[in-house]
């Protein structure tokens, strides 16, 4: 009995050390979340890439879920072409910074044609261009204690991901879709593109990125507004 308990304790500590325990690990459903997250992190240890498609496979229709923020502040930004919008990056970084849209567009970019799949059942393929998050984070200097990156948009939403996804080469802060400025319903001026997780992790209308050691002090401590509503924190599914 004691040996079994200490065995589980050692396994839990090892799993935590190697980043195999998600923030929403508690409760009965937490067992499933932990198994899925740990299994996929072990399988993905060689930084697998999501499939990229050809131009001819781009979907004609790109559905959206949810409207852009109706606040006056967002509408004002939208009509001014996001001239006064800033992306702030802070938390566990050496040089907290903020960027205008023009500054982001001058940084090295990556273009990828990937699948965006919603948990509601629809999916579409589109081409996105944006700044790789790993470039942006290394340019501000990630401190050694960093374990999660938290995203706050212009609406009262938030999400977080682990460093494995934050540093993944396909993880983009996208500002164009199918060669045009990102449309408002798709998250203008800037959205996440994280093709190894499903739609709801791809935060739209980004305004603030915070690098942290733990997410337990943010909101209800489970790692995202969606998670507080009962969705999985890790949505590699």
């Amino acid at each position, binding site marked *: 009995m004691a040996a079994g308990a200490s065995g589980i304790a050692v396994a839990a500590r090892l799993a935590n050390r190697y980043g195999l325990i998600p923030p929403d690990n508690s409760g009965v459903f937490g067992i499933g979340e932990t198994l899925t997250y740990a299994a*996929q992190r072990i399988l993905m240890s060689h930084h697998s890439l999501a*499939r990229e498609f050809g131009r001819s496979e781009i979907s004609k229709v790109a559905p959206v879920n949810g409207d852009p923020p109706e606040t006056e502040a967002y509408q004002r930004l939208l009509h001014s072409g996001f001239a006064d919008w800033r992306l702030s990056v802070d938390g566990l970084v050496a040089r907290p910074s903020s960027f205008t849209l023009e500054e982001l567009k001058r940084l090295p970019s990556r273009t990828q044609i990937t*699948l965006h799949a919603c948990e509601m059942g629809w999916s579409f393929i589109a081409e996105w261009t944006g700044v790789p998050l790993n470039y942006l984070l290394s340019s501000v200097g990630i401190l050694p204690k960093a374990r999660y990156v938290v995203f706050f948009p212009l609406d009262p939403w938030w999400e977080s991901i682990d460093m494995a996804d934050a540093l993944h080469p396909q993880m983009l802060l996208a500002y164009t879709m199918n060669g045009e400025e990102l449309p408002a319903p798709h998250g203008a001026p800037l959205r996440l593109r994280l093709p190894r997780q499903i739609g709801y992790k791809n935060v739209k209308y980004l305004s603030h990125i915070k690098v942290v050691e733990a997410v337990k002090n943010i909101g209800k401590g489970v790692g995202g507004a969606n998670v507080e509503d009962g969705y999985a924190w890790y949505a590699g599914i």
Partner: protein
Amino acid sequence: MHFLSAWILVLTGLVYVAIGILTHHFREHLLPNKTQLRWNAIRQVVSDHVHLKRPPKEDAVSYNLLQRVGYLAVIFGLVPLMIWTGLAMSPGFTSVFPAVAGTLGGDQAARTIHFFVAVSLVVFLIIHIAMVWLAGFKHRVVTMITGRTASGTDYP
């Protein structure tokens, strides 16, 4: 809930299949045997089912042809297809094994198959319970759980 159930299905399923192979359960009790595959026998078992004829109690000692085909289809057809099409919809899993979705024709094809397999499994469940009811619910459930028939004979 969905994904926790998936883990339970996969983990218990692996144990079940491993034990079934090691104890020759599948080969001896689920693969149709030669007598069952004779034309007369096939016609007889189909006709008994069509007429909803109650099987005698001694029948619980072994599986008939339709049971064997049904169980094999579920164990080695529908359930693996369920898991396969489920994994094909996982963007994380397919980034490691793209062929899992590619061979099916993409995530939406996988979703459609996943849905039809789910419906098939529910239909199987309903028919299965109806047949158990028809054959004598209490007796059959006791046999199912203990592996012994009412007459005390061990399952061969």
